[in-house]
């Protein structure tokens, strides 16, 4: 008969605790034994619901094509970046693959180059010839010190979305607008007090003066930025100051802009103002059009789109806003397998067409652009083929250089923009002070770590 190796009677505290201890030991052995076979398991963290839904349909196909591989998709929503940071700090528990949002990546790039928690993908991209197949400028947000830590999920070109009916009612044909000067002239006609009570009822454009989103988009359009390619602070350049002066003038001098209703462009109040005809235009990246369609479907047919007005005739007529990358973490036990999944989710033409169908996001893979779906009329825009416009603009996207100090810089930039628009400081004062603060922050860190 079966006999316990340990005499239960002589075990301190009796049989119950002994059984619990044995179960604890068995389960511990089981857990550690299982972790050995994780080479075939891929964990993939996501923060965006729409991406998660897309991968839920795509991943089973990958698993079927790669027998024995099990992909675990985990959607942590908005808290994902904090969880990833904790996992990288503790050097334990990070996923194999992860998507990271553009304003969050900077914090992961701090420290020595070998401390970054993402695998450098440049060798794989170059050896397999992917660099030429994608929009090169879209690697800049995910690159630092010569390494590429992520593959762009998107391009996010920006267009000017406008209310054709209301501009026409004001006697303005928006398709004739080519430059920002043209837009100001058109905006002055369209910004009106309709009931004569002394309050403006409709503004030509809605802009966010609380955060950097609109101002920074305008700055990027001109080829400017917060940091240059070498990591130098350039937010106090003449270009940046002139752009902020222009931004401020839309509110205070030309009086054609209204601050965003609520706290950001996706605020329900902002959508309500759009429906009420208080907002006549908005700078809209591709993803924002997707949000509009889902949040205010009743506005179908009321919007039209044109390329952004240029600063000078012939200049760039788009910019970029937002973005996501996919990266392989340095904790990944099987980077080759992870790379295969990455390519399957990001470089597969069929999958990217499907992504556009559900999210309206234009893919960075150029060979996908000739798919018929991008030329289809968009009913939300009264039949205008919006995909075609986005793709026409895509090759001209400006670079957006990444930097570990972006988060600190952006936080201070928000304050500077608000100070300038509310005339507490001039644009020059606000940006000069901001640049000095960020330079001082970097200088202090460089003093602490001389090899930074």
């Amino acid at each position, binding site marked *: 008969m079966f006999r316990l190796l340990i005499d239960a009677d002589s075990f301190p505290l009796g049989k119950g605790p002994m059984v619990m201890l044995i179960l604890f030991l068995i389960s511990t052995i089981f857990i550690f034994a299982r972790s050995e076979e994780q080479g075939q398991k891929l964990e993939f963290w996501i923060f965006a619901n729409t991406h998660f839904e897309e991968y839920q349909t795509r991943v089973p196909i990958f698993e079927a094509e790669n027998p024995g591989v099990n992909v675990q998709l985990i959607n942590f929503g908005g808290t994902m970046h904090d969880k990833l940071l904790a996992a990288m700090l503790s050097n334990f528990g990070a996923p194999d693959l992860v998507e990271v949002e553009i304003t969050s990546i900077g914090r992961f790039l701090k420290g020595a180059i070998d401390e970054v928690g993402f695998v450098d993908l440049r060798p794989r991209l170059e050896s397999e010839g992917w660099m030429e197949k994608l929009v090169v400028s879209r690697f800049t947000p995910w690159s630092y010190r010569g390494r590429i830590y992520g593959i762009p999920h998107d391009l996010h070109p920006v267009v000017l979305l406008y209310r054709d009916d209301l501009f026409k009612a004001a006697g303005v044909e928006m398709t004739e607008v080519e430059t920002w000067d043209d837009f100001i002239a058109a905006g002055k006609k369209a910004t009106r007090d309709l009931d004569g009570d002394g309050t403006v009822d409709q503004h030509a454009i809605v802009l966010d003066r609380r*955060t950097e989103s609109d101002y920074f988009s305008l700055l990027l359009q001109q080829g400017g930025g917060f940091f240059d390619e070498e990591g130098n602070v350039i937010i106090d350049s003449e270009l940046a100051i002139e752009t902020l002066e222009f931004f401020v003038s839309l509110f205070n001098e030309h009086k054609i802009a209204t601050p965003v*209703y609520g706290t950001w462009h996706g605020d329900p109040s902002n959508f309500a103002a759009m429906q009420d005809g208080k907002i006549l235009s908005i700078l809209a990246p591709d993803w924002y059009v997707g949000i509009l369609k889902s949040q205010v479907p009743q506005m179908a047919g009321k919007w039209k789109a044109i390329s952004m007005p240029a600063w000078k005739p012939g200049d760039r007529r788009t910019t970029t806003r937002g973005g996501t990358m996919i990266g392989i973490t340095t904790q990944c036990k099987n980077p080759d397998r992870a790379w295969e999944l990455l390519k399957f989710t990001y470089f597969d033409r069929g999958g990217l067409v499907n992504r556009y169908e559900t999210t309206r996001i234009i893919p960075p893979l150029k060979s996908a652009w000739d798919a018929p779906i991008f030329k289809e009329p968009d009913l939300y825009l009264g039949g205008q083929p919006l995909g075609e416009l986005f793709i026409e603009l895509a090759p001209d996207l400006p670079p957006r250089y990444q930097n570990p100090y972006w988060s600190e810089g952006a936080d201070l930039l928000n304050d500077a923009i608000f100070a300038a628009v509310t005339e507490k400081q001039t644009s020059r004062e606000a940006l000069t002070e901001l640049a000095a603060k960020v330079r001082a922050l970097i200088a202090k860190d460089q003093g*602490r770590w001389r090899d930074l």
Partner: protein
Amino acid sequence: MRTKPRSSRFWHQQQKIAPYLFIAPFYLLFVLFMGYPLLSSLVMSLYEMRGFQSRVFVGIGNFTDLFRDPIFWKSLRNTAYFAIGTLTLQLPIALLLAILLNSKFVKGKNVLRLAFFAPVLVAGVFVAIIFNLVYDQRAGLINQELILFGREIGWLNEENYVMPAVILTGVWQWAGFNMIYFLAGLQGIRQELYEAAAVDGANWWQAFLHVTLPSLRPVIAFVFVVSMIGSLQLFDLPYILTNGGEPADAGSTIVMYLYKNGFQFMRLGYAATIGWVLFFIIAVISIVQLKLLGIFRDE
């Protein structure tokens, strides 16, 4: 029997160690999840991290930096503003509601108690989302009324109104919760005290001043201290309501600034420093409050 001496020895030993084993789980968990992190964060506040691995000793550098940091002072001012607003607005309202619900003349007490308490059951994030709509400058509930009087306030868009908006939201959410404490305290006051006061010729106000308030002192002290600590730890409500403290850090609080430094800027040493400064502020204020409210007095 052969085993008897062994059992008896073991039983004797067990009697000695049993009490320690009973309290051991708490101490083990405390050391693991409180003691070690606390000590670790204190050490961390003397360092600054770079990336995920290396760090450099900066001594009290983080503390001196913090006291020169204008955003920290602004966050501290905002937090103090909220705490004072909470104590001067929310607690009297909570006490007033409790007195009303404790009076014989109010009907439907159970329904009212539930109605006043219900906002506590709503998660802070949802409260913030709801009040975002309430405070909307053009279409919000409050401004729709104010417009009738020719006034429109940018609750969340003008620096001066951001913290009042947060305070009012806090009142809506927490006044009912504190009301329950006061109500429990009121119901614990012996009726004989009021009868004795009436015999001495005290009117309602005098009975309130000389019977109700002194009897409620322990409850008031508890609510004061807990509300103050809660106010100093304010985070989720303004974070969502003001989209991260905007505009111009008008909605930034100490814990929000701590979070930003720790998780968004990856300045963990600096964030730990903010945490320790906050700890000292809370400790000092709580001790002063308890002292002023006479909780340390022997009676």
